[in-house]
């Protein structure tokens, strides 16, 4: 294992909403009444079943409640031992799954306010991501603008599997707002399950859904690049969170080949996909999906032809590594510094 250094930025930690009732104080009277009168229960996505081994490391799993619901645990498990300067909170709660744009907007607003009060206000190292109601682009933009006045929000959060491919033009006002307000778009693993979780239909197993996140990220990168999002918004950064990293280079080789072959179809894409990724796209480190040998790791980073693509993450409390081994073996000290400090700061302008 490469040596961790102090002052790093953990770009992917997951504070858990204990229960839908935890959001009641952050809903207005109407929505509080809707939740209680209609008997709405907790919003738990299939993406992260509470007791799944992926959802929590055994030694990070609390005796009671959801993994990640306690600030004291997060401090004890990652913020203190990893000597982090900052950790970016990406709440994974099923608010994106409901179909009503009104309900979704109310839940997102409550979730963002809950994050401020219950987490950001209670530890100065924490930063937040704005969860948005993508059923309505208008409401999503309004929520971004509302939250962005608090500089501790450093990112906008979307799921990798939603209603439409993320490059679609209808979503562009979200990207316009994000670029204007210096907020990268974080795209996190997980599905709203508004489409089958693979491009060949519904599988049988949780393991299949989880492994399939990598393919979802690949199709989203294609969409974002060929629709021209980064031509229109050249300063916009996007961060693929919990995406895996070893697929990046071979995927780009294929995309590059077809872009050369049929670029007349999308003539506005005026730079090679590889260049667009180098300037605008970043990836979180965990889950690091390479075999545990240094020689392979060195070649994989060589293939990326850049030391700026990867951002440090523990993916707390998800179980991606044991002990303090958040960094795979074989990373040079220079690369560790880039991944843990320089790259996150270059990606998140609000991170001060």
């Amino acid at each position, binding site marked *: 294992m490469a040596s961790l250094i102090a002052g790093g930025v953990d770009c992917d930690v997951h504070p858990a909403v204990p229960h839908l009732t935890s959001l009641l104080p952050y809903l207005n009277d109407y929505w509080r009444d809707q939740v209680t009168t209609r008997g709405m229960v907790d919003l738990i996505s299939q993406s992260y079943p509470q007791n799944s081994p992926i959802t929590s490391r055994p030694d990070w799993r609390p005796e009671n409640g959801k993994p990640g619901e306690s600030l004291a645990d997060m401090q004890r498990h990652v913020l203190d031992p990893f000597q982090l300067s900052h950790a970016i909170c990406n709440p994974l709660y099923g608010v994106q799954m409901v179909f009503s744009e009104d309900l979704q907007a109310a839940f997102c607003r409550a979730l963002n306010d809950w994050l401020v009060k219950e987490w950001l206000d209670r530890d100065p190292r924490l930063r937040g991501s704005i969860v948005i109601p993508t059923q309505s682009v208008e409401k999503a933009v309004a929520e971004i603008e509302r939250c962005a006045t608090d500089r501790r929000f450093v990112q906008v959060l979307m799921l990798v599997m939603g209603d439409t491919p993320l490059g*679609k033009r209808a979503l562009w006002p979200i990207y316009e707002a994000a670029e204007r307000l210096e907020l990268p778009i974080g795209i996190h693993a997980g599905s709203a399950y508004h489409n089958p979780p693979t491009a060949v239909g519904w599988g049988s197993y949780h393991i299949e859904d989880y492994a399939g996140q990598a393919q979802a990220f690949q199709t989203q990168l294609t969409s974002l690049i060929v629709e021209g999002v980064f031509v229109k918004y050249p300063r916009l950064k996007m961060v693929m969170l919990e995406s895996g990293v070893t697929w990046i280079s071979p995927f780009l080789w*294929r995309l590059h080949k077809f872009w050369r072959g049929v670029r007349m179809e999308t003539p506005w894409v005026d730079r090679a996909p590889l260049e667009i990724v180098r300037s605008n796209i970043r990836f979180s480190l965990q889950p690091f999906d390479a075999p545990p040998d240094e020689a392979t790791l060195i070649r994989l980073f060589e293939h990326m032809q850049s030391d700026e693509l990867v951002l440090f993450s523990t993916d707390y409390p998800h179980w991606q590594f044991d002990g303090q081994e958040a960094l795979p073996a074989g990373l040079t000290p220079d690369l560790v510094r880039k991944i843990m400090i320089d790259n996150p700061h270059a990606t998140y302008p609000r991170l001060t």
Partner: protein
Amino acid sequence: MNIQFRESSEAASPLTVKTAIADCDIHPARATRAELYPYLAKRWQHHLEVYGVHAYQGMMEGPPYPKAQPNASRRDAYPPEGGPQGSSLSFMQKQLLDPNKVQLGVLNPLNTGQGIRNHELSAALCSAINDWQIDKWTSKDKRLKASIVVGNEDGLSAAAEIRERAGDRNFVQVLLLSRNVEPLGQRRYWPIYQAAEEAGLPVGVHAFGFGGNPITPSGWPSYYIEEMVGHSQCQQSALASLVLEGVFERFPKLKMVMIEAGFGWAPSLAWRLDKVWQRLRSEVPHVKRPPSEYIREQVWWTTQPMEDPERREDLFDVIKWIGWDRLLFATDYPHWDYDDPSRVLPAGVSEDNREAFYLGNAKKLYGIS
């Protein structure tokens, strides 16, 4: 990739291959719709004329993602006697088989009976295509071998078609497409794998197909390039399903060939599956070994379209991780993204690896002496 407006040419490109090759992905086409009628019952001829074909996608003519070229094929591949690219044996011999020293050419017909909602019609069309492959192609040129196409959504009738053709040396594999109503590991498809294993035939899974699912898990994208690139994600999901449903465990002699979906993603997918399997294996106790082992032992890969890194040596890392013994050279003739055998491997590859890549692996897998 071809040069778009090159003059029609019967000669190979200026570089030529020195030794015999196998081409594991050739697409034969019908010159006319009626070319299949001699192999179809009157009922189905009538059906085609009156109702046409209803696939798991909405358009009867023309694709919802228009291709970049007519029939997605080389502009220099129209036969002189007329008809679409890939529809003439004599022109295929002159343009592809002879100049490239093709010793074994595996036919993978597309636009068959697969991906059709009427499963009886699907079976009838597939059976007709199989007869047509013998009559028009393999009986007339011994270098060519056919693939048994089967009505993919009805496992039992598909298995019956495989059993009927088993032992016929005109056929060297069973052909499926990657996109189906469900992921390919699902039980409805198991009779196909059982019959193929019994017949000793590999199952080729060619990119494409229609199953009604959006080609991304986030819905339908906008462009042809997204469909083209997306086929590799479909293939990854199909292969993950095959592993995680335990198909390779249950059918240990089954061999599968991933056709025209790239291979660069193979190591990453295998590593990722191994990693999540370590965590979540209690959900899938029927997957008894690390997923990468099944993939290493039971899966082969055709090469076209070869991934295209800036530095060729990067691709050779990937080939090394997969194994030089698992790649099968393919041109994808007559399609536009044809890989030229004289160009795909640069100098510096050992003679053994070169021979395995171009010919040896395919002869061994398909049992050609």
